């Protein structure tokens, strides 16, 4: 392996960018590719498949053997709102393997006592997301009910191409939210991507059950997502 490529690959991984190391198993030469890089023919198709599925694979093309090692960032879940549902969602999502972050500017809610051992930010989403932007490997669930806190985060998530965007609230609440997001200049297509009412329809009746419904919906979005783009 080329030492420079190893360094570059590690930089990409640490920056949460998708990358693929292509190795010619015949002569040992390797190349580092990003999603969308042009590679012709059957090899290019295999590379696209690998990026989409997140699966590394060996392929034979024109009598040559290649190994495609794809590195996708671990899925992250950003929760807007340090509320009761979040207290149930955090431990479940952690077990499912998500990187977690909880944001709520209301210091009465965002206390370490309520959220032990998770990255908890008692700040406005505007400030946090300016420091660490969202990306297509991130899910965002907005559960505060408060437009002042949720709306900006929802807009940022849609603009960043988050693989899942969910918002808590009744149909009536969501209708008003749709109006506000339109005024913010979001397209109907973007607004239509918001999962609301949030969570799979399993008749969830309390915060813990709603957390199950939300996590299941996020996993469905993660595993059934279309081709990723950086």
């Amino acid at each position, binding site marked *: 392996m080329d030492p420079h490529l*190893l360094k570059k690959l*590690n930089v990409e991984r*640490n920056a949460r960018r998708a990358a693929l190391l292509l190795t010619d198993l015949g002569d040992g030469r390797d190349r580092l590719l990003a999603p969308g890089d042009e590679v012709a023919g059957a090899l290019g198709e295999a590379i696209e498949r690998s990026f989409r599925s997140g699966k590394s*694979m060996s392929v034979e093309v024109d009598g040559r053997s290649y190994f495609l090692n794809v590195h996708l960032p671990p899925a992250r879940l950003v929760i807007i709102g340090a509320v009761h549902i979040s207290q149930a969602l955090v431990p479940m999502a952690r077990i499912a393997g998500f990187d977690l972050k909880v944001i709520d500017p209301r210091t009465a809610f965002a206390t370490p006592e309520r959220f032990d051992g998770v990255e908890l930010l008692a700040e406005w989403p505007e400030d946090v997301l300016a420091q660490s932007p969202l990306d297509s490997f991130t899910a965002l669930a907005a559960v505060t009910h408060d437009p002042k806190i949720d709306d900006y985060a929802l807009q940022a998530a849609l603009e960043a191409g988050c693989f899942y965007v969910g918002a808590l609230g009744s149909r009536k609440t969501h209708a008003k939210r749709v109006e506000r997001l339109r005024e913010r200049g979001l397209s109907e297509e973007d607004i239509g991507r918001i999962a609301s009412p949030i969570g799979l329809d399993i008749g969830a009746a309390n915060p813990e059950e709603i957390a199950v419904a939300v996590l299941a919906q996020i996993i469905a979005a993660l595993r059934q997502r279309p081709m990723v783009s950086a």
Partner: protein
Amino acid sequence: MDIVDETRDPLMIAERWMGEGREVAIATVVETWGSAPRPTGSHLVIDGDGNFHGSVSGGCVEGAVVSEAAEIIREGEPRMLEFGVADETAWQVGLSCGGRIRVYVERLG
């Protein structure tokens, strides 16, 4: 903040070793058949003294890969290794789970 765990991630460790002037080999699972313990793309990294991090199986064949790596570091030519349950003697350097894997081992640099 770094996303990748520097203390456990094989490719981060390989980069650090390289920076310290150590010789390094990288082993990668490139193909699996049947029930294989580690998925395609998994890495084991080995230095010139036989220190290693990561895994290409559940601990069944790492020893064999580490000893091959010493020669690969010396000679510089990559090798393709194959492990499976071929016969009764395979227990020593085989996969007890009944799967079969191909492992590509190359020198870094």
